[in-house]
């Protein structure tokens, strides 16, 4: 019985040592560099996707943008027709510049996402 407990402890100690090595070791590889691609500034007045799609999926699009912009630094959205947009809430609100654009539907359906906790909402600007 005692020996089994000892075995447990030894196993655990081994795992934690291994984990500690993994945790505190430094594993960041440096890759060779390549010149930056530069693209001309484009502005679009068309929406990134058809209305019906956006109605159902805008939150998913925005959520995906948020993740890829913040985490991966991928800033460019390529629409299905090949046109390019910057992934930004401003891209949407630049065209949909009705101050109540978000709020009329969202208050009707009582859906309250937390976007405006940080992003300045159209209602707050003037």
């Amino acid at each position, binding site marked *: 019985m005692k020996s089994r407990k000892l075995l447990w402890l030894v196993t655990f100690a081994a795992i934690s040592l291994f984990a500690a090595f993994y945790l505190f070791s430094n594993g960041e590889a440096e890759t060779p560099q390549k010149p930056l691609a530069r693209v001309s500034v484009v502005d679009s007045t068309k929406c990134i996707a058809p209305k*019906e799609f956006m109605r*159902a999926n805008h*939150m998913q699009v925005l959520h995906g943008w948020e993740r890829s912009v913040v985490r991966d630094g991928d800033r460019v959205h390529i629409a299905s027709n090949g046109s390019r947009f910057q992934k930004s809430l401003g891209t949407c609100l630049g065209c949909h510049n009705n101050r109540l654009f978000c709020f009329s*539907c969202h208050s*009707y*359906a*009582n859906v*309250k*996402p937390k976007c405006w906790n940080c992003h300045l909402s159209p209602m707050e600007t003037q």
Partner: protein
Amino acid sequence: MKKVVMPLVMVAILALLPFLGVQYAGLSYLFGVIIPYTATVVLLAGFVFRMVDWLRRPVPFRIPTTCGQEKSLEWIRYDRLESPHRFWEAAARVLFEVFFFRSLFRNTKAELHKDSNLVYGSHKWLWLGGLAFHWSLLIIVLRHSRFFFPMVPGFTDFLEHADGFFDITLPTFYSTDAVVLAAITFLVFRRLNDAKMRLLSLQTDYFPLFLIAAIVVVGVLMRYVVRLNIMPVKDQMLRLVNFSFDAPGEIGALFYVHLFLVSVLAIYFPFSKLMHAGAIFLSPTRNLPNDSREKRHINPWNAAIKFRTYSEYEDDYREKMKKAKLPIEKQ
């Protein structure tokens, strides 16, 4: 096995009906307007009918179940909840049953151990599962009130906020969705797991479970996976609560599946075990005060009994009694 598969197939067919009907036959008016109204009428009328029917049945005897000290002498403390003596005490007992499932709380389970002794241990899993299931369902139903009011009432806001506390998904994740699915899974497996429970369970036990599970799953799919456009849904629900017969707008077929299954549940409700929702208030072992010793309870259908007192008897037979030299009280 048939007892489990049949209800499953039934629910699957019921789910497919509106899907095919709306997607391929364009029956959105039938599934979006006619059936919901019908179901509501059936639910309300059926519920009232069953309740009135039960209420009119006379309760012949006081048959409260008690497990506490009965009210007797003033200086003996009695158990107000376990042996209620007044109406309010009995009402409190019923309400404890309704809100906290007190009788399930007492469940025990017999176990046969190796050394062949039978032991009883407390077994609260059904109580816990039942509480989780019913309370989550209640919160989910109340939360749906956001579809029925143009301006959402404050308590719905509060419920949504509390239920959606954990900021995980985008449409906000509701904890009750997960809890109710877990609870249903438990309640189904509870019946399947044990030979005795399998024997006791009938199709009518599995069907409502599967039906509610299907409603929840479709709801979850609509919200988190397919992400149905919510605007025409709210339009349609507002129309329904305003008794409008206008045709619904463009809504995904899944919504009709959800709505149809709810309608089926509503229609099924008054004619099934689901009526325990109303019946629990009428269960005589729970709602009767235990006062048989202080009040005389008479069967309502008993014919009036003609009692004959001794003095009447004596009046009738006084002369004969005198002759027989029997002692009489009045001369």
